[in-house]
C-alpha cells in the first residue's frame, strides 16, 4: 500500500515537474542523474587505490586516486551535458487497434552539440539509442493496450555516456493525438441483415422493391446493387438506387453484441465493423450515446471506430502511466 502511495505521489510530482507537451526541451528541471552500478564500483576502486597509496606512502598512487575521482566528477557533468538541451518533438502517431504496435514519430534536436548514445523508449517496449549531431528522426513502436486516446505513459530518455559512471535520465510525456480503436474480435459471426427481431429490421422487409433509379458505379458500392443486366446490355456499370437502402444493411448495436463486459462487446463490434467493411455490407452502428447512420467506406469505418474507441471514454480510468 505504502509503495503504491509513494508511486502515486511520485507520478503526481513528475506530472507537475514535467507536464505533457508536444515538444520538450530537457534542462535541469527535467534531467535526473545518479551513479550507476559501474560508478559505485569505480568509487570502490578509487577507495582501494587511495588505501594502497596510504599504505605505501606513494604520492603517485595518491595522485592516481585523485585523478580517478576527478574523472568521476567530470563524468557527471559530461553525462548531464549529453542530455541537456535536447528538444524532443512528437510529430504524429497513427491510429491503430489496441494490442498492435503504434509507430510514434519523434524528432530529436541536438541544439548545437553532438550527442552520443541517447537511449529512448517506453518501458517494456522497444528501446533505441541514437548518436546525432543536428537533428534525428525516430520512429518508436509502442504497444497500445487500451482503446481511447493513446496514452503510452512517460517515455524514458537516458544516457550513460561517456564513461558509464552516471545515468542521466528523464521521463517525458507527449500530449498525443493518436486514437486507439478497440481490439477487433472476429470470432463472432455477423448478425443477419434482416435484424434479429429488431423493429427496424422487420420494417425493411420490402425495401428492396422501392427501386428509385440508377447512378454511375462507385467503387464503394455493393456488388449486389450493380445493374449487371444493364452492364451486359450497354457495357456501362451502374448501380441501382433504392429509396431506402436498409434492406441489406446490418445494424450493429451494443445490445446485440455478445460478450461479458463492455470491452468485449466493443471488441466484437469492432470486429463486425471491419468484417462488414471487407465484405462490402453497409452497416450502421448504434451506441447508447451515439448513432452512426448506415453507410460503407473508409470514412464511415473511421467514424464508427472512433465512436467505439471513445465510447464512455474518460469515465473509467485510462491506461496507467507506467513509470519505474
Amino acid at each position, binding site marked *: 500500500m505504502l509503495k503504491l502511495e509513494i508511486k502515486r505521489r511520485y507520478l503526481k510530482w513528475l506530472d507537475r515537474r514535467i507536464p505533457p507537451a508536444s515538444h520538450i526541451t530537457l534542462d535541469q528541471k527535467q534531467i535526473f542523474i545518479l551513479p550507476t552500478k559501474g560508478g559505485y564500483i569505480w568509487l570502490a576502486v578509487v577507495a582501494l587505490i587511495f588505501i594502497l597509496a596510504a599504505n605505501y606512502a606513494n604520492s603517485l598512487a595518491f*595522485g592516481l586516486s585523485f585523478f580517478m575521482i576527478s574523472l568521476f566528477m567530470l563524468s557527471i*557533468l559530461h553525462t548531464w551535458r549529453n542530455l541537456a538541451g535536447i528538444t524532443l518533438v512528437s510529430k504524429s502517431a497513427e491510429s491503430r487497434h489496441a494490442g498492435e504496435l503504434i509507430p510514434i514519430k519523434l524528432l530529436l534536436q541536438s541544439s548545437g552539440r553532438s550527442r552520443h548514445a541517447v537511449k529512448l523508449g517506453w518501458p517494456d517496449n522497444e528501446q533505441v539509442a541514437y548518436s546525432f549531431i543536428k537533428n534525428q528522426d525516430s520512429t518508436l513502436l509502442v504497444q497500445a493496450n487500451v482503446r481511447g486516446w493513446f496514452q503510452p505513459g512517460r517515455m524514458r530518455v537516458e544516457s550513460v555516456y*561517456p564513461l558509464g559512471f552516471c545515468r542521466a535520465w528523464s521521463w517525458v510525456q507527449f500530449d498525443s493525438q493518436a486514437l486507439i480503436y478497440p481490439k477487433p474480435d472476429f470470432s463472432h459471426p455477423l448478425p443477419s441483415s434482416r435484424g434479429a427481431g429488431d423493429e427496424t429490421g422487420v420494417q425493411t422487409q420490402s425495401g428492396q422493391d422501392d427501386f428509385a433509379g440508377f447512378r454511375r458505379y462507385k467503387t464503394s458500392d455493393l456488388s449486389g446493387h450493380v445493374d449487371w443486366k444493364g452492364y451486359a446490355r450497354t457495357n456501362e456499370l451502374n448501380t441501382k438506387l433504392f429509396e431506402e437502402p436498409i434492406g441489406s444493411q446490418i445494424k450493429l448495436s451494443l445490445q446485440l453484441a455478445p460478450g461479458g463486459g463492455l470491452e468485449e462487446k466493443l471488441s466484437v463490434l469492432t470486429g463486425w465493423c471491419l468484417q462488414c467493411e471487407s465484405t462490402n455490407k453497409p452497416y450502421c452502428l448504434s451506441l447508447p450515446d451515439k448513432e452512426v447512420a448506415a453507410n460503407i467506406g473508409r470514412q464511415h469505418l473511421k467514424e464508427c471506430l472512433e465512436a467505439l474507441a471513445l465510447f464512455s471514454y474518460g469515465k473509467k480510468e485510462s491506461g496507467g502511466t507506467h513509470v519505474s
Partner: protein
Amino acid sequence: MLASALVSRASTLWLIAALLLVLLPVWKQVPAIIILLGCFSAGWRIAILLGRGHWLPLWLRFGLILIALGSVGLSFKPLISLESSVSILAAGYALKLLEMRSQRDALVVVYIGYFLVATAVLFSQTLLQAGYLMFCLLILIAAQQGLFRSSGSTPVTSSFKFAGALALQAVPLTILLFVLVPRMGPLWSVPLPDSSARTGLTDAMTPGDIARLSRSDELVFRARFSGDVPLANQRYWRAVVLDQFDGKTWKQSDQSFSEAGLPRTNWISQQPEKSGWWVNRESRYQYEVMMEPTGRPWLYTLGAAGAVTENSFFFRTMRLEADQPVDSRLLYSMDGVVPQPRSISMPDWLTELNTQIPDVGNDRSRQYALKVFNQSGQDPVKMAGQLLSFFRQNNFYYTLSPPLYDDISSVDQFLFEGQKGFCAHYAGAFVYLMRSAGVPARVIGGYQGGEFKEDGNLIQVRQFDAHAWAEIWVAGQGWLRFDPTAAVSPQRVESGLEAAIGGSETFLPDSPLSLYRYRELGILNKVRLAFEKAEYQWQRSVVNFKKDEQETFLRDLLGDKDFYWRQAVVLTFGVSLTLLILSLTLLYRRQRLSPLQKIYSRFLKKMARRGFVPEVGEAELSFARRISKWDDSIAEPVMAFCQTYIKAAYKESDIEIAELKRLLAGF
C-alpha cells in the same frame, strides 16, 4: 541492459593495446608465463577480431587460469607479496580479455587496468614512468568511452581525442586534491616491493663486485648542496665499512659484537652525537641527499659521519644506517658536523677487530708488509706512503675486467703476479698489508665522485661511481683516508671512471643507449641535463610530497592558526569553484554563430517581443508569412528581410549582410 550490450571493435582494440601497455612497466616483477599469457590473449583477441579465431572453450580457459595461478604459486616465496598481487592482476586482465564479450566484462577489464597502473606506480615513480602511465590511462579512458558510444563506426581516434580532453579537464581538480587532501598514514603494514635484486653496494665485498656495478648507469642518489661543493677528488661518499676479512671477502661486522660480550651501545648510538668516541667539528658542507631505494639500510654521507640524521643509527665506524631498509626513495639532510681529524683513542677490542686477518695464506704479502713497516720506521703514515709508491712504481694496471685470483692467496697473486685490478683489489690489498704489520685498517665501500650539476648545485651519483678505499688508524690523528686506486689511476678520482679506463675498455658495455655515454654530443647532453633536472624537480616536489611535506607546505601557505579548519575550508571552496568553472565552460559555452545566424537570432528576438515565436520545424518564409498576416504594420519589412535572408543563406556575402542589418533596423 549493461550486460547484454556487446563490446565494439574499437573498444576491444583499445583494451588489447592497454593490456600490452600496462604489462610493460611490470614485466620484471611478473613471471614470464604471465607475460606470455598476456601476449597470447592479445593475439587471440586480434585473431577473433579478424574473423580467424574462435572463442576458447571453457576447459581451456580454466586450464589457463590454473597455469597462471600455478606460475604465481611457484614463483613467489613468500606467496603474499606485492609482486604476486601484481601477477594475479595481470593474469586477470589477460584472461578476462580473452573471454570478454559483454560490456560488463569489458568494464571489469578496464577497472583491472586502472589497478595495474596503480601497482606499477609502486615500483617506480620516475618522470618517465609517470608519463608512460598517463599514456596508459588515456588508452583506458578511450576504451571505456568507446564502450558507451552507440555507433561502432566512429573513428578510433575520436575516442583518444576525447580521452585527452577529459584528462586535461581533470588536471586542475587532480592537482587541487593532490595538494589539499590530507594524506593518511599507513593503515597497516604491507609487503614492500622486493628490492633484493637491485644492483647496488653490498656489505660483503669480493673483488669483482664493484666491477659489476661499474657496468650500470643507474642513479644512486643526488646530493644538493646549500653552499660549497667539494672538489671532485674530495667526493668520497661513505656507505659501508668493511672490517672483517676471511681471505676472500671483506665484510661488515655488526652482530659479532654482541657475541664478544660487548654492550651494543659501544657500537651503535641513536644519540645525535656520542661523546667519548671522538670529537666533532662544524662541517663545511651542508647538503641534502635524495637516495633511490636500495632495499638496504645504509645511508650515504660525504666522508665520515659525525652525527645521526632523522630515523637513523650512528655506527662507531662513522657510518649511518636508516632504522629500516630503504625501500622507497628517501630524503635526508646532513647539515651537522663531521669528526675532527684528531680523534681521541681507540679501545683495545676495536684495535683487535681492525687488525684481524686470516691465520693462513698470503705469506709473501705478510713478509713484504713487515719489511716495509720496518723500513719506514714503524710509522703507519710513512708505511702507507711507501705502499702507495709501490703501487705507483710497479706495473699495476687499473681495469674493469681483472683476472680471477685464487682463493687462499689472492692478495699475493694480485700484488706480485697479476697486478691488474679494480679499486676493490687495491683497497683490499692495501688494508691487508697494513693489518699484516699490525696497523688498524679497514676498507670503506661507497661511491667516489659524481656528476656536478651547476644549476641545481647538486651532485648526481650513479652506480658506476661505486668505489672502495682504505682507512688506517694513527694514534693521535685518528682514522686517515688513503685511496690506493688514486696512486694507480689518478684520473679515476679526479675525473671519474670513464676517464680512468680511457679508450682501452668500453664504458657502460651493457647500456649502449644510455644517454650518459653520449655526453660528448652537445645537443644530446643538453637534453640529458634538462631531463635530469626535470626529473630531480619531479622527485623533490611531487613524488616526495608526503604527509609531513604536505603539512609543512600548507602550514606555510595557510598559516598555523586553526590549520585544519583552514585546510578543510580551502579544500571545499577550491573543489566547488573548480567544478563550477568546469560546468560553466562545459555546459554553457556559447555556440559560435556566423554573422548571418547572429542577425537571424536578433530578428527572432525582435519578433518574440511582439509575441511571434516560430513553431517547431517552421521554415523562415512561412514564419514571415504568418507574421505578415497577423500584423500588417510590419508585414512589408519582415517579408523583405526574410527574402533577403534566404538569399543570403545560400550565398553569404558582405553586401547582403549589410543589407540585412539595414532591413532589421527598419522595424
